[in-house]
Every structure is written in C-alpha cells, then in structure tokens.
C-alpha cells in the first residue's frame, strides 16, 4: 500500500505531512467540538436545575418599563422586542451622528495639526495628546457629570442666539414642524435629489470625456439647494414651521430637546474619536510625497486644486483603512452609553436581561447585533476603498 504512493513511498504514514495535517486538524476540530458541547451541557444543566430553559420567546413578553428616549411610540406595555428595537435605533442614531461629526472634526484637527501657524499647530497637538491618553469611560463620565449636568437648571437656562437653550435637562434647539404643504415639499425635495444626481453623473461623464475636473459634488449640491429653495418659496405656505423651545412648567417644550445623556455620549464620542481620526488624517496627508505637491504646482495648479485633485485622492487611499477601524471603534464604544444612562442597544438589553433573567439569550442577541453593525460598516468601507482605488487608476 505504501509503495503505491510513488516517490514518497519511503515515508510512512505517520510522517507523511499531508496525513498528519489532516489528522491534526481533525483532532483540533474534535477538541473544539468537545469543549463547546461541554460548555453548552454545563450551561443547560445549570439552568435546568433552576428551572430555566433557553428560549427567545420571552421577547414577546411585556417589558413593563419606560424608556426616556424613543424614536417610535413605545410604552410600558410594549414588548421586550420593541424595547430592543428602541435601543437598536438609538445606537444607530448615535453612531451615524458620531461618525459624521467626528469625521468633520477629525479632518479639521488633522489639517490644523499640519498648519504652518505655530499656535494652531500646537493647540491641535496638545488636544490630540490630551485626548488620546485618556480613558474613554472616564472621559464620558466626566463629560456627563462634570459638564452637562453642571449646566444651569431649567429656570436659569443659558440662551444662545438662535433660541438655543442650554440647561442640565438638555439642549433645546429650534426644530421644524411640518405644515400642510410639507408633503408637496417632500416631493420637490425628491425631484431636487434626482436632478442633483443627474448633474453629478453628467459632470462625471463630462469630466471623463474632456479630462476637465469640475467640482462635481459642489454643483450637484447647488442644484439640490436651488430646487429646495425654489420649492420653499413657491409653495403658498412654508412647509416647515420653526418652533423654538420654551420653558414651560417643569421642562422645556417645543423645538427639539436633546437630552444631556445623548449630548454627553455623542459629543464625548466625537471629541474622543476625532482625536484619533485627526492623527489618521495627518499621517495620510503626510504620506503624499512633497514632490507630488511641487509637481502639481509646477503644472500650474493652484493651492486648492492641488489639495483637491492631487493630495486628497492619494491621501484618501492611505486614510480609508484606519478610518474604517476608527468608525468601528466609535460604534462599539457607543455601548459605553451605559455609563451616562443613554438608552442604547447595550443599555436596554442589559435592562431586559435584568428584568427577565434571560442573560444568555440577551447577550447572544446583543453580540450578534454588534457583529452585524461591524460587518456592514466594514463591507461598506471596503467597497468604498475598492472604488477609490479604481478611480485612481
């Protein structure tokens, strides 16, 4: 039998690497399965002795608790599953606001860090070093207890121009309330969006054909803005009525009141993450060699054109992968909402497991949800990364 293996005939099977590999892997898998089932059996047995069985049916049960911030109608008679969804949406909103704001702020920081202005440069450097060496949890707790809760009480609200109310009950900002003409306006907005996208692709095609580099995004945004403004003034009644917050009774009413928990969590995450993004942006810009800038200036590009057409696209390729992991960090770090009392996914899930006693079920659900978040974000950023690579070539 051994002879039939040809050249390797001399090798007995216990020294044949291929067979050993397969055996090793089999042993490894068997080991994993044994340990996994051991753990699962322990858990099953342990829970069974206390009369608890694993099941997700409890999610249909009535939650019994109220939640301070919900994006849809929720009451104490809603189910655990609805409470979970409330948390999911809250995490999403913090993540989206956080990602956008920290990108903007991070780019500003990164550019400021490279500024030739000594003061601005040092200020940005100080900020980066300060924030990057703090523990996010401590920072968030401090930010919430030491800053947002120390704002004046409702009665002595600090009012900023534009009816922005700062109190320790939250930050009140004016908010548009839809009027009767809002549905029509929404239609106009959609038309504007379609037009803008049309302009975008038309300019792209033009750019490809002629080699010119028009400001595609700027023109597209302008188109949208013009259509929106036209719609606003053409309609007989303004589609949105601006409602400024007022202090009435115990709390602020009207406008939009952003709770201190939301503000502290979001702004804290933004301040923290943007310091890391600033560093990413800085090293991205530095990675573009000086020769590129000089060559582009020599070709007659002005400073802005150089930045937009030469430096930025190249820097972006370096920036995207670490930026992705910063976005992922922000999303995962939003689970620290539990420290400031903002009802995000993790916080509400913890409340649910606590009221229902369904620890294993709830935590598996939470972890799967975060995994999906991370996966979707990575996929999107990878797709974008691939795209900008292609455009460059």
């Amino acid at each position: 039998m051994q002879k039939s293996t040809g050249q390797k005939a001399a090798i007995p099977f216990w020294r044949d690497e291929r067979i050993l590999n397969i055996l090793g892997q089999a042993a490894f898998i068997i080991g994993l399965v044994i340990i996994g089932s051991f753990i699962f059996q322990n858990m099953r047995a342990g829970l069974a002795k206390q009369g608890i069985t694993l099941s997700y049916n409890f999610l249909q049960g009535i939650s019994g608790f109220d939640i301070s911030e919900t994006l849809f109608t929720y009451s104490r008679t809603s189910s655990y599953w609805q409470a979970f969804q409330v948390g999911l949406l809250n995490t999403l909103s913090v993540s989206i606001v956080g990602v956008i704001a920290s990108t903007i702020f991070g780019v500003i920081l990164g550019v400021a860090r490279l500024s030739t202005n000594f003061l601005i440069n040092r200020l940005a450097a100080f900020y980066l070093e300060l924030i990057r060496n703090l523990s996010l949890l401590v920072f968030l707790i401090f930010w919430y207890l030491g800053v947002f809760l120390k704002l004046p009480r409702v009665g002595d609200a600090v009012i900023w121009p534009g009816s922005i109310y700062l109190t320790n009950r939250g930050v009140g900002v004016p908010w548009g309330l839809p009027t009767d003409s809002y549905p029509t306006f929404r239609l106009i907005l959609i038309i504007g969006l379609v037009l803008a996208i049309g302009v975008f692709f038309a300019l792209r095609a033009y750019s490809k054909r002629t080699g010119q580099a028009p400001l595609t995004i700027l023109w597209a945004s302008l188109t949208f803005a013009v259509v929106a403004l036209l719609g606003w003034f053409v309609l007989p009644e303004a589609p949105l009525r601006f409602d400024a917050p007022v202090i009435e009774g115990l709390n602020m009413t009207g406008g939009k009141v952003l709770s201190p928990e939301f503000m502290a969590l979001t702004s804290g995450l933004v301040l923290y993450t943007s310091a890391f993004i600033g560093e990413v942006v800085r090293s991205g810009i530095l990675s573009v060699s000086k020769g590129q800038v000089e060559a582009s200036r020599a070709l007659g590009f002005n400073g802005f054109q150089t930045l937009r057409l030469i430096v930025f696209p190249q820097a972006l390729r370096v920036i995207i992968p670490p930026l992705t992991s910063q976005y992922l960090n922000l999303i995962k770090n939003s689970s620290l909402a539990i420290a400031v009392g903002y009802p995000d996914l993790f916080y509400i899930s913890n409340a649910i497991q606590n009221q229902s006693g369904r620890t294993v079920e709830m935590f598996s659900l939470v972890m799967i949800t975060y995994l999906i978040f991370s996966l979707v974000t990575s996929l999107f950023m990878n797709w974008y990364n691939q795209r900008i690579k292609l455009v460059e070539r």
Partner: protein
Amino acid sequence: MTQTNSLLPPLTERSGVLRWMRKNLFGSWPDAILTIVGALIIYWAVKGFLTWAFTIAEWEVVSANMRLIMVGQYPVKEVGRLWIALGFLVFLAGNSLAIWARKSYFVTILLLGFPALLAFLPIGDESRGWLFSLTALGLVGWGIGRSKPESLGKIVIFGWVISLPIFVLLTRGFTSEDGIMPIVGTNLWGGLLLTFLLTVVGIIFSFPLGVLLALGRRSELPAIRLASVTYIELVRGVPLITILFVSQLILPLFLPPNMTIDRVLRAMVGITLFSAAYLAENVRGGLQAIPRGQFEAAYALGLNGVQTMVFIILPQALRLIIPILVGQFIAVFKDTALVAIVGLLDLVGIAKTVLAQPDFLGLQREVYVFISLIYWVLSYGMSYLSQQLEVKLGVGKQ
C-alpha cells in the same frame, strides 16, 4: 498671500521674535484670525481651569481617599508588601536602564526620580518615606547595573520574567491569617493596584495568544485558519463591554458545577481574550511585512518551519511593530476602566465608591479629573518612554 509678503520690509530688518511671529502666527489674514481665535481659546480654557482648580475645587476628597484610590480596600497593615513589590520593579527598572539604555540620562532621571517627585504631594509621611526609598532603590539598581552591565543582563531578564508572579504573590499573600503573609482576597484588591494588575496580566497573556492566532490565521491548514479568523473577527466585532459582561455573568454558567473562577480572574480572562484578537491583527501586519526571501533563505539554511518562524520571522516581525504593540498595550490599560461597569473596584469603580461617601457628595469633577490625570500620566508616560527607547535602541527601524 504672496502680495502681502512683498509689502513687508526685508526679513533682515526685523528682529528675530517679530520675524518668527510674522512667519508663524500672522503670515496672512486668515492666519492672523486663526491665531487670535486660538489665543482666545487658550486663554479661556487655561483661565477657567486654573480658577476652578485653585479656588473652587475641593481636593480634600482626593487626599482623604488617596489610599482607596491607590490600593482599594487592601488591608492597611499589608500595604508594605505592595511597596516591596513595587520596589522590586523599580530596582529592575534601574538595572535595565543602566544595562540597555546607558546614554538615556534624561529618561533614567525621569523614571527613577518620579517616585521622589510624587513624594512632594500631600500624601502622608509613611508613603513619602516609601516613595523616597523607591527612588533610592532604583538608583542603587542603576549603580549596580552600570558597574557590571555584561554579566547582569541575563539575571535582569530573568528578574523581569518572574516579576509578575512575584508581584501577584506579594499582593495575594500565601499564608493563613496568622502567618507572615496572610492571603488578601481579590475582593479587596482595588484602585490603581487592580487597574495595574488587570493591565499587566492582559498584556502579558494576550501576547502569546495573539501571536498564536496571527500564525493560525496564516496557516495552510483550513480548520485552524478558519477557527483563528472566526475568533479574531468575532471578538473584534463586538464591544469590550459585552465580553466583560459575558465573562462576569455568563462564564460561571459555562463551568461545571463544582468550579468557580474568581471574578477578578474572570475580568482578566475577558480582557486577555479581547486584546488577543487585536494583537493578532497587529502581528499579522508585521508578518506580512517580512519579505518572502527571508523564509526561503531560512529554508535554504536547513531550518524547519518552526525554527524559521521562531528564530527568523517572528523576531523581525515583532521588532517592526513595536510602536503599534505599545499603542495596543496603552489601549489595554485604558480599556481596563470598563471593569468598573461590571462592578469591579478598579480606579473608576473606586471613584464611584468614593463619591458615595456622605462627606464628599457632588465632587465628581475633582475625583474624575484626578483619575483622568492618573490615566493620562501613565499612558502618556508609556508612549513617551517607548518612543525614547525606540530612538535610543534603534527599534522599529530595519
């Protein structure tokens, strides 16, 4: 921009400071506006902070609870053990500095003088004495190291290897209550002590695990590769806090009925497992940077797979990523704060406890500013020292 400059007198006619300011602060109109805004921000922030720190803040909450913040509920009469353990570390640090960083006088002075510097804070005479002894011990270590740098190297490395077991042994004790070193349960470990131990254990144990996972991810065996990839991606996809909750709340359910694991140990396990996944990715980055030729050369010299990996590839890969590894270690240190959420009394947990004392309610700012300061000094110190040593030792360069 260029026009503005041409209107100015020639550079040589202006004094150095003014010229510098012209160039670096008021180069153009937007620049000047930025400078003024920046200066205002600095003025406002510094003034606000100093006014608060020196007139409003009540620092008594910190000084009265210094012991809690440093060691938690660790018994007073056993605290000497911790000082001895710390002394051992400082002694080793002195040795190491003298042997491997002979020229780094600044770092040496900074590191060994740090305890003595702390002694000038209002912390009580006993601690002050200990702190001065630490510096003295460090200097003695430095002197010894300097006199015999060649022969001591291996001993010092051995010292570092056993330092964690020694530290843990001294912290925990090993005799019954009447013995010389009564056992102090982990429920009494707290404050900076607990943060320190969580960090060190997290770093040390996640390192080999991370390297194994990184190797596993590059494996040619599909089962091992798949398992490593799954593990790394699963762990990296969820927040640390979920892992800590699982380790505190669910892990006990996974164990057989006759076995429980200490909760501090469980937190250590959680942090280690979490950090290993990130380390694995860092190590993988280092491995990828090693050119194929290195493998081929090693094979050509007759080394087998394991030898190649252990003696040729890994040392180079790890050397390449030392700055990244230090960054990861700092992240572990900062992340240990999360154990406060699962009820451990680390720096943050003890801060919460201190704030529950009737005498010190509402002093969150003072306590958290102080805690932040500790985190900041230690993580900035770590990154600064590693940068300094990297430059001196030429680490990180090929």
